[in-house]
């Protein structure tokens, strides 16, 4: 297989004494839909910031599309084809949905009318067509998540880094969002998503990495990582895996974990 679209090797970042990300290496194959999971404070968002140039790693390299992009400014990373979204949504509040998304479309489109038209079709893809002329500030949380996604998608990325696009949504909204994300991946965009909503990742991603306290502790298919004792411990606390195992042994039907 050719080189992965995004490859991290030995990436580390510390803030003062806090080692937010330590020696992380991973490779995202082109055309895949993958996930990055981990408990709160594991360093997932920091890792995204390191990939997309918002932070410069203390050590290690980030390669994207066969090119070293370590510490490349975010707008240049976006130009190279890697666009991220934000966990805490960051709309251009004073502008309409259409104008928000057009800013992304302008990356490859100089003309205003063409960018606005591109924004419209992207909004249709993520289910925002009805809200094109609404000010971004008037959107619901679910609407803002879609806007965040649409704006990033409008840059026509090769790799989309989605930071918790499902967090804060109710079950119905999540159910509506899943096909959107799946559709984007089906259209050939490589997607790497940070997710807290485990069930969602399990449904979407073919491969997941688990980050805990700044280190990768497991990777594999969703089924593999959820049965990994280290992952269970990272999420539920030390000793939990053993207890769960003991209980599963006592009650023959092995249900209820995670």
């Amino acid at each position, binding site marked *: 297989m050719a080189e992965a679209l995004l490859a991290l090797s030995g990436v580390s970042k510390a803030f003062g004494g806090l080692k937010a990300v330590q020696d992380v290496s991973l490779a995202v194959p082109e055309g895949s839909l993958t996930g990055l999971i981990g408990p709160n404070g594991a360093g997932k968002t920091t890792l995204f910031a390191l990939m997309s140039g918002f932070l410069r790693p203390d050590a290690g390299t980030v390669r994207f599309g066969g090119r070293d992009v370590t510490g490349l400014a975010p707008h240049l990373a976006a130009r190279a084809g890697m666009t991220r979204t934000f966990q805490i949504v*960051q709309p251009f509040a004073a502008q309409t949905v259409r104008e928000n998304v057009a800013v992304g479309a302008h990356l490859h489109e100089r003309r205003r009318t063409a960018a606005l038209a591109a924004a419209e079709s992207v909004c249709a893809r993520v289910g925002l067509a009805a809200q094109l002329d609404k000010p971004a500030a008037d959107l619901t949380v679910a609407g803002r998540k879609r806007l965040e996604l649409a704006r990033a998608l409008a840059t026509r990325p090769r790799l989309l880094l989605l930071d918790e696009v499902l967090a804060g949504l109710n079950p119905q909204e999540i159910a509506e969002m899943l096909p959107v994300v799946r559709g984007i991946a089906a259209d050939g965009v490589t997607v790497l998503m940070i997710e807290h909503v485990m069930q969602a990742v399990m449904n979407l991603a073919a491969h997941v990495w688990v980050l805990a306290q700044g280190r990768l502790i497991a990777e594999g298919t969703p089924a593999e990582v959820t049965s990994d004792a280290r992952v269970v411990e990272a999420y539920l606390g030390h000793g939990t895996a053993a207890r769960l195992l003991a209980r599963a042994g006592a009650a023959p039907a092995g249900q209820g974990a995670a």
Partner: protein
Amino acid sequence: MRDAVGIAAFAAAIVALTAWLESGVWLTFLMMTLYGALLAQSWNLLGGFGGQFSFGHALFFGTGAYVQAIAQVGHGANPWLALPLAVLAAAAVGAFVGALSFRYGLKGSYFALVTLAFAEVFRILALSVGFTGGGVGLMVPLREGAANMQFGSRKGYVLLVLGFVVAALAVTAWLRRSRFGARLQAVRDNEDAARAVGVDPFATKLGAIVLSGGFMGAAGAFYVQVFQYVDPAIAFGPHTSVEALVAAIVGGMGTLWGPLLGAFALHALADLTRNLFGQLPGLNMVIYGTVLVLIVMFVPRGLAGGGASVRDAWRSARRSAGHRDG
């Protein structure tokens, strides 16, 4: 397209008004209002559309004014040739200050303080070096004639400043429907989000401060042509900086017509209070200040923004009425 029609209609109306007016008082009022509008418009390009609040726009104004004056006094240049130099010099100072502050990510009050400090530095420099005439200032010799950009009647000056104002309107309208303008407003609203979708905030803000500086330089050159005199306090003192930003904020930041509206409202208010309460010194300023506070309190989006909110409310009322009918 609608903007172009509006700008053309505005220009035609002012030309007609200028032709019709005979009173020197009213022509001077019109000239000073348009001049105030030009200051506010150029501040609006950077502050309103770019969200970079400068407290020292006199820096660019003074640069334009001094270049216009020195080119004529020191080098005998024709003022029409000096004008592009004045604009370019002010734009270059904009590029210099912008490069320094935006390179190091100065924002908000830090950027405001840096511009304020630069204006002050330039004022002190203008006091200390020889070619500015120091504290005595520079006097441009009187040579009346359109070829020397010195007009016998106020009408010529009104048309000249109208030309600048229309150019600023055109640039502002372009900002509203161009990639550069979209990027500038994106940086204003959320710099990180803009960077994530490929906007270079440094280049974008730099472009805005160069444009803004250029128009401010034109205003400085215009000032010199009208008053034929400039000194360090006039050129780089805080008065011009404040006038530019207050009119833009009162009129509506980030709007096309706001700076014009703001300049008109402020000049009308200032003249009115001066005429009504001129015999009680200070009272006019008290009233002027009170009205300013009231505007900022009750129309925080500015006069143009307030108009827009009224229009939005009207439209949504009509829409819901339409829904009931249908």
